[in-house]
């Protein structure tokens, strides 16, 4: 009898260092599933960022490169330009992408670099212990926003909607926002990833899937509370769906 639901080949079957309820693990799994389904394990290269997913190379079973904090889009540019027929995945957190690496992501997107960014938006700096991120919601607590993010009096600014920010750039071809707080959203997100990877392999231009992701540890919640909080607060601010889709070829991906 054929096994209908099995561990993806592109993901090692070892225990991760992620906290219980963390979104990173789910995201790893759906990336690995798409790579398996596309038969690209031997052509995949991931740049794992400085952040909780810095050890992605322990879990993904394919080539990887670990660049400096925020410089992943620049390193991915160098890799993809040298290996245009490979699948290059630029995995980034919100601190990595939307704070220290803002210049790198904007210019990689604007050049239409043909790799795919997986942007894990957990509205917090996970690895360093819960500091405010550029994506932290107004009023959300962080160690560096002890009274909650206050854009006006404390001058902490407003949360950045990265897909919408990048959508004005002509080099961007596909910008989608998903979430991994429940099975339905996870399936949709996997579909976005597949569309982005397929567009990358066709050489269409810059593709990115932003994924709203739970960080129960630094949100100081249980896993269950964190998926509910994401649903109620993050999705209310960060609209889900395909924010921009100017792919030329007909989308071949189906919801699985």
């Amino acid at each position, binding site marked *: 009898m054929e096994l209908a639901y099995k561990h993806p080949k592109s993901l090692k079957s070892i225990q991760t260092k992620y906290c219980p309820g963390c979104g990173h693990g789910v995201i790893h799994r759906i990336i690995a599933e798409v790579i398996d389904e596309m038969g690209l394990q*031997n*052509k995949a*290269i991931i*740049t794992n960022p400085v952040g909780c997913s*810095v*050890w992605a*190379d322990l879990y993904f*079973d*394919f*080539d*990887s*490169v*670990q*660049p*400096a904090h925020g*410089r992943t889009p*620049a*390193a*991915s*540019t*160098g*890799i*993809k*330009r*040298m*290996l245009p027929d*490979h699948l290059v995945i630029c995995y980034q957190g919100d601190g990595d992408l939307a704070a220290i690496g803002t*210049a*790198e992501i*904007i*210019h990689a997107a604007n*050049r239409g670099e043909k790799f795919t960014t997986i942007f894990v938006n957990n509205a917090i700096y996970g690895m360093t212990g819960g500091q405010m991120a550029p994506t932290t919601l107004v009023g959300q607590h962080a160690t560096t926003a002890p009274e909650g993010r206050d854009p006006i009096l404390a001058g902490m600014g407003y949360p950045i909607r990265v897909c919408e920010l990048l959508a004005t750039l002509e080099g961007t071809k596909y910008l989608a926002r998903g979430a991994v707080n429940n099975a339905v959203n996870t399936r949709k997100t996997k579909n976005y990833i597949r569309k982005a990877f397929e567009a990358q392999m066709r050489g269409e231009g810059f593709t990115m899937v932003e994924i709203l992701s739970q960080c129960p540890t630094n949100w100081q919640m249980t896993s269950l509370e964190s998926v509910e909080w994401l649903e109620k607060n993050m999705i209310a601010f960060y609209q889900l769906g395909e924010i921009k889709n100017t792919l030329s070829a007909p989308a071949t991906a189906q919801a699985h």
Partner: protein
Amino acid sequence: MAEEIRLMKGNEAIGEAAVRAGCRAYFGYPITPQNELTAYMAKHMLAKGRIFIQAESEIAAINMVYGASSTGARAMTSSSSPGVSLKQEGISYLCGADLPAVIVNVARAGPGLGGISPGQGDYFQATRGGGHGDYYTIVLAPKGVQEAADLTYEAFSISEKWRVPVLVLADGLIGQMMEGVVFPEPIDPATLPRKDWAVGHVTEMHRPYNHVTSLNLEPDGLEAANRIRFERYGHIKEELVRYEEIDVDDADIVFVAYGTSARVCHGALEMARAAGMKVGLFRPITLWPFPSARLAGLAERGKRFLCVEMSMGQMVEDVRLAVNGKVPVYFYGRCGGNIPSQEEVFAEVKRLMAL
């Protein structure tokens, strides 16, 4: 077939040498006095179907080099002092991940924005690693256009052999001046072998998956990796040290100078010899590894040294370390973008001869 002699600016000669060395990817950001190099690479790399990107910053450029080098391709960036400061994080990562790369610094005078005239104030940064952590880069210092081309060409293979980034430390004068130059044979990058440590082409390479990283949270693991790298540095010190000596044998005072200041010292040496003074010139070509053993040997023979630099005195510290107090080491420097004249250096040597 003998190659023709071409009259070229140093910056362009460096570019042509890199193209001939099989450089597959160049990433740069505009800064004076190296702009001709970036423009040369734009024209010639794109014409050859290779990769040229004008990056959004020097930080992005060095990280593009990091990515390209991770695939085993010959990759390069160039800049001048303020831009090279921005590259230091990336250079530290390249060293931590044992990736080859060629980085050219057509140095200017600092600190800060400083000026755009030639300087040698980046010696400490170049020879002490420059970024965070325990590491060195190989540093090659040309004295003119021909040597800038030769060292740039060779920098790629040296860097690949040792898996250590190579910094070509020129200065604004060498970048801007024109001299005759004959280039080495072009290498077709397609003929260069794939690297077993690089990412990509897994199936063709029949290898396990590779992970290019400088991360190691286990203190014992990180220490072991650093120790292995330092063993390699030991071999580099044995094999790579290069210098040039002029009239050193009978000299009482030996100039120690590199790059542009060595050219000035050569002029002062000729003035001194014409006046009957026994003066020589010792010119380090590798600034790291530094030719300490040879200098120590000359100190044993009782030579005094006059270190001449376009800085407030940086290489002089390495000279003093090398001679270890055995003989006097004097210093003469100009900075701020000033180049000492051979007359003023000659005057200094006359003063010292009278001591």
